[in-house]
């Protein structure tokens, strides 16, 4: 009975958010296009034969960057911006009264957006293959499933980190600047612009202890068939989720206690 209720809640949330997202198709298409930076990077790498020094062939590198593009498309998180707006406008108060954590609402929003985004990402990939026909590949089903799982885990890590930052809105009002700060290491260390293998050894020695390489580099390597340690990668992703989730719960309960609605 209770299970049924939860199921219905999830379905309704997803349905509402999906139809909401479909309203903004053009917008989401533009978001998808704005994620093409990995392809520019690929162009620099192959055009200057930089990949020879890191022992990755042209084809594998182009697959890597295409996979990085895909992983990024399905792990983009913007919860802090939504939450900041809602909290500045006083919309959080009605959400708090409902018997549902408002972050479920945002979570459903993200999932719905990913579903809407999927066809656009496919179209971009299609164009990519027209220009680079030699890099077409079909990963086997097991790898494909594993990389979908690891992309989802990467999305979860980023969603948790951003939710923690979003909860800082209860204290500082403008938490999005902290998110922009956190975005810088994510951009440069996650493997979106250059595969982590190519990093100098003084960075490689500590980077695998941080969550960053598991956000894009690991799932992209997995999907593109580059060398990577699957079990270590997946367990590190799960470890980070287990570390971040209690932190989020703690900061959420502290924050809601601290929260005072506008006008009170």
């Amino acid at each position, binding site marked *: 009975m209770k299970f049924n209720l939860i199921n219905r809640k999830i379905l309704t949330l997803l349905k509402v958010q999906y139809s909401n997202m479909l309203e903004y198709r053009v917008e989401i298409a*533009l978001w998808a296009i*704005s994620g093409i930076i990995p392809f*520019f990077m690929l162009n*620099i790498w192959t*055009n*200057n034969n930089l990949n020879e020094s890191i022992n990755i062939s042209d084809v594998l590198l182009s697959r890597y960057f295409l996979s990085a593009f895909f992983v990024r498309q399905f792990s983009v998180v913007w919860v802090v911006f939504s939450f900041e707006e809602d909290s500045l406008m006083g919309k959080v108060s009605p959400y708090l009264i409902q018997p549902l954590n408002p972050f479920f609402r945002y979570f459903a929003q993200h999932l719905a957006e990913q579903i809407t985004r999927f066809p656009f990402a496919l179209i971009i990939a299609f164009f990519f293959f027209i220009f680079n026909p030699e890099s077409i590949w079909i990963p086997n089903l097991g790898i494909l499933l594993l990389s979908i799982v690891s992309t989802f885990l990467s999305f979860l890590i980023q969603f948790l980190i951003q939710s923690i930052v979003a909860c800082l809105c209860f204290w500082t009002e403008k938490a999005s600047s902290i998110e922009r700060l956190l975005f810088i290491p994510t951009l*440069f260390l996650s493997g979106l612009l250059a595969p982590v293998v*190519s990093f100098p050894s003084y960075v490689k020695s500590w980077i695998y202890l941080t969550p960053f390489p598991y956000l894009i580099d690991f799932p992209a390597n997995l999907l593109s068939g580059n060398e990577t340690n699957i079990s270590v990668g997946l367990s590190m992703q799960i470890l980070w989720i287990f570390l971040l989730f209690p932190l989020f719960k703690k900061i959420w309960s502290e924050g809601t206690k601290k929260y005072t609605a506008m006008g009170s």
Partner: protein
Amino acid sequence: MNLRKYLNVYKKFLHTSLASELEYKTNILVDLITALLSLIGSIFLLSIFFQNNGYIGGWKFEQALIIQGIYTILNGITNTWFNPNLTEIVKHIREGTLDFVLLKPIDSQFFISLKKINPSGFLEIMLGFFLLLFCIRINQINLTLSFLTLSLITISCSICILYSLWFFISTTTIWFVKTWNAIEVLRSFLYIGRFPLNSFSFSLRVFFSIFIPIAFITTIPSEVFLGLSQLWKILLEVIVASVFLVTSRKFWLFALKFYSSASS
């Protein structure tokens, strides 16, 4: 007389927007750290490209740093003036407050392009300048009068092109209402301004010199710094900049004819 009026108005703009931005002091501090980290990140990325190669697209590391410096200055200018103002246009149009702007006895383009200022971009501009000074030292560039005037001319042309691109996209809001994401697309395209144009493949080079003239924005000023630029390129940049400025002005006036306020 007229100029003095506009100067006076601008002084008032500066005063009010600085006062309101300085309300969020920690925010500014976080933004400063973000700017610093972002510069470190891009130099890190550049060093990865150069770790096994002496040249990228015919540029040495020391020379590519000049591009990085100019990009940082331009990005700082974008964050100080263009970004806060031109995202405001979207708001004006969605909420129908553009009416109030149009009713004022002052040029509407002047008003919406310069109303706001974000002081945290200043640090980025300064960082860029320091990097450029450092580059002038390590590349042993002689500071002559002609060098200074030429680099000033080219950099101001770049600023004009950049402004026109931003303004052009923001103007399309009058028809499409939500162009937030188009601006994100522009941002991701501008990202390639961090690298020498020659490091990209021929087709991308053509695309980025004709359709979106990012080539003109950073590469030509950097060539002036190195004394490599031919006169025709500088002349071309001046022409492109003026064409862009004039077109963006005309486009704004044209678009205003299609503006119908929220209630009509």
